[in-house]
């Protein structure tokens, strides 16, 4: 592992990302998040930032997330013991969304894995990164686990993202969704993946920390681009029906319950060989006890994380994320409900401030994905 001098426990003063000074200059409201001082919003506000990202392009600082390099001759085969995805079959330049499972078939974290040919490049959640690093170091003998704490990560998301980024690196235009490659951007070697967390087309761009501010300024200079904080990042991913670790995913929730069976390689469903395979195989065969669902409350009252779901007065589930969807123009939520009630169209009650409010199970996502498949 690399020197990890920039990372400390979260009870210390929050760490600054490589573009902290730029956040301050842009007038961001900074909040402590996963041990970092992060912009929750800029002066435009969550609603305007969200809408701008759906209409043009938003720039997000996601440098707090963990960027990890796995190297060694058998890194892909080794990683497959910790995740249920097909990693060995991942082509050069291909990226995959997967999950670190635990022995009980729950989820320790969700992550992206890119095959760079010589190594695997992982992006893991900020709040989980130290646990993930320890998990990999302990369970991947013979694999070098290198936390790249000296790198920045920016996300450029929205329908204008490709046009904006291609002005500086024309090759990005043709990259399909879920691929990655090394590229020069403003004279700096960067790692660009066509991916994101908004449901929109877009990119995540990794670069040496000392180049992050110059690249952020270059992108923000484009009239199509506005900075977007964590507030809108959450409403964008919620509309896109994407899981947030600590809400839709945790050590007790299985990938089957979470509706993430598509992330489990077909041949691995039968073969197993990853942590928690027994439970996951059982749930694949017998159906899980509960399922993640989309919830659309009637009226305008929001149902947030923790709200009880009832049917005929009986508790049948719980909301795990909820808020206002600016592009949907109304309240939206996700949660877990007993499998028998998970069908789209099921009428439910949400217990908001002691009062039952009607809602309905709906299909996810709330806002259609807009990915570039090439």
């Amino acid at each position: 592992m690399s020197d990890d001098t920039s990372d400390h426990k979260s009870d210390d003063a929050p760490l600054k990302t490589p573009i902290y000074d730029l956040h301050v200059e842009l007038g961001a409201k900074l909040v402590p998040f996963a041990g970092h001082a992060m912009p929750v919003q800029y002066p435009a506000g969550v609603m305007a930032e969200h809408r701008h990202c759906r209409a043009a392009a938003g720039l997000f600082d996601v440098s707090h997330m963990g960027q990890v390099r796995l190297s060694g001759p058998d890194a892909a085969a080794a990683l497959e013991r910790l995740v249920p995805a097909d990693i060995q079959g991942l082509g050069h330049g291909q990226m995959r969304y997967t999950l670190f499972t635990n022995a009980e078939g729950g989820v320790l974290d969700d992550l992206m894995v890119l095959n760079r040919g010589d190594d695997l490049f992982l992006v893991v959640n900020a709040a989980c990164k130290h646990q993930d690093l320890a998990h990999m170091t302990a369970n991947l003998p013979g694999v070098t686990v290198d936390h790249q704490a000296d790198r920045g990560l920016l996300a450029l998301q929205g329908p204008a993202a490709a046009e904006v980024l291609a002005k500086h690196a024309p090759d990005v235009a043709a990259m399909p969704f879920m691929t990655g490659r090394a590229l020069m951007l403003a004279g700096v070697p960067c790692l660009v993946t066509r991916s994101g967390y908004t449901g929109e087309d877009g990119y995540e761009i990794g670069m040496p920390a000392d180049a992050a501010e110059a690249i952020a300024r270059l992108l923000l200079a484009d009239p199509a681009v506005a900075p977007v904080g964590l507030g809108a990042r959450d409403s964008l991913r919620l509309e896109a029906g994407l899981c947030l670790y600590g809400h839709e995913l945790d050590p007790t929730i299985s990938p089957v319950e979470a509706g993430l069976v598509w992330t489990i390689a077909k041949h691995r469903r039968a073969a197993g060989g990853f942590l928690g395979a027994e439970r996951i195989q059982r749930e694949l065969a017998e159906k899980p006890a509960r399922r993640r669902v989309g919830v659309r409350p009637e009226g305008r009252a929001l149902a947030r994380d923790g709200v009880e779901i009832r049917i005929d007065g009986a508790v049948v589930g719980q909301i795990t994320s909820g808020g206002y969807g600016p592009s949907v123009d109304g309240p939206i939520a996700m949660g877990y409900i007993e499998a028998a009630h998970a069908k789209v169209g099921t009428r439910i009650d949400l217990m908001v401030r002691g009062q039952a409010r009607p809602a309905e199970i709906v299909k996810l996502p709330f806002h259609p994905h807009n990915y570039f498949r090439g």
Partner: protein
Amino acid sequence: MADLKFTEEHEWVLIEDDIATCGVSDYAQEQLGDVVFVELPEVGRIVNKDDECAVVESVKAASDVFAPISGEVIEVNDTLEGDPSLVNSDAGGDGWFFKIRLSDPDELDGLMDEAEYIEFCKR
């Protein structure tokens, strides 16, 4: 004569005779961010000072609005149901929440005037 007062919970109270029109301050709406839902009390409800009286939800969080004074709720601003963003665009005017007929006018002495409130927000 109308008299404008403020609470430490960032509500404003405009008193005309024995009727108090109440809302949240411009400072409060700025802190809340984009308001997306307002839950108002029932007309006719008798409230005591500091009772939870309404809820204002922004994209960030739900916040209680307390009764700044005791009395009877005689009117609520129904237009907020359809357009909660009025709280952001005109917190001190069209974004008002409810009107209370005062039962204890002496309570008004405990509220801040505008100059005191501006100082309070700077603290």
